[in-house]
């Protein structure tokens, strides 16, 4: 029987179909692949992100270490500087047992000297003060005598210039003292109201 080519081809090809076994196999193959993709996708994401994470960790460790290192160095440097200064006991430029009596003399400072909350200046132990510098920044040093122990204490004050004192510990920046022992002396350093304080006393 004759019929159009289109109809014949259509009919002939439409008779062709996959067996149920073949269909099952192909459907299963697809399902397996999609299940596998779903299950390994989070791992794939982790694996692809892992190198970036590792680099981030290494960099953060490196930088945190270097900041720590530089902080220690800075703290150490300040501690050693004030310790040397303390040991020299250079003559005081003004003698007064009150801060109010001292402040008018220090009109060349770029900051206003303060009485720190961490340490109490009392009339009984304040001897006087003089100009000095810490890391090149003009500073003030207050000399005190602890009459109970007969030991001299020196309190240094300078403007807390972040550019100069970059890397100073955050805790010290927030007023919690950073303690460093140097040359048999204890040096406490902290920042309060924009002033860097360093208190040194012999042990």
């Amino acid at each position, binding site marked *: 029987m004759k*019929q*159009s*080519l289109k109809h*014949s081809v259509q009919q002939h090809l439409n008779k*062709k*179909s996959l067996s149920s076994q073949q*269909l099952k196999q192909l459907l299963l*193959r*697809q399902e397996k692949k999609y299940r596998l993709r779903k299950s390994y996708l989070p791992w794939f994401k982790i694996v692809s992100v892992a190198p970036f994470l590792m680099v981030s960790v290494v960099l953060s460790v490196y930088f945190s270490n270097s900041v720590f290192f530089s902080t220690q160095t800075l703290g150490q440097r300040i501690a050693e500087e004030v310790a040397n200064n303390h040991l020299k006991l250079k003559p005081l430029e003004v003698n007064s047992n009150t801060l109010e009596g001292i402040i008018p003399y220090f009109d060349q400072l770029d900051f206003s000297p303060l009485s720190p909350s961490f340490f109490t200046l009392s009339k009984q132990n304040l001897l006087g003060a003089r100009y000095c510098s810490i890391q090149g920044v003009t500073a003030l040093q207050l000399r005190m005598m602890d009459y109970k122990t007969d030991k001299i204490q020196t309190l240094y004050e300078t403007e807390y210039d972040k550019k100069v004192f970059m890397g100073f510990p955050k805790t010290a920046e927030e007023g919690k003292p950073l303690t460093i022992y140097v040359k048999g002396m204890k040096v406490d350093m902290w920042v309060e109201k924009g002033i860097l304080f360093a208190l040194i006393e012999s042990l």
Partner: protein
Amino acid sequence: MFDQAELNRLYRFCYSLVVNETAAYDLLQNSLEKFLKSDKNKENNLGFMYQVIRHQFIDDYRKQSKQHTIPFEEQDYIDFDVKTLESISINEDLTQQILEYLDPLEREILFYWAVEGYTTQQIAEMLAMPKGTVLSKIYRMRQRIKQQFNDPQDQASLHNEAHKK
């Protein structure tokens, strides 16, 4: 994921390319593997899969078979359309023979036209060929089918037609 109906549709396409049931299943299986490996979630998965099958077929079969070369002059645009194929009437029993007689590209065109109902333009897009080339192939296919399978009366009309050209 392709459902049963889509898989059967793809299988028919594979069959139209290889004209053998086992080979068609193999072609579909291999192409599906490639498709799944591609990890692509295309908007038109079926269209993409046709392309995968086509490329897989070219890799597997066309390299092995003799390339059917077409004379240069026949590549020129000929004012024929797929509709010209509709004028061909054949004996129903000859369909399989015709499919086997045609080359893979001709069968592919036949599949798109007869089963998928595509226009010449759509077929050209699927084959990534200029429309003129597709038209010349259709013209040539029509001649070949008529010469090989039509009765003497049709042969005569074909001869006259060729003379007019």
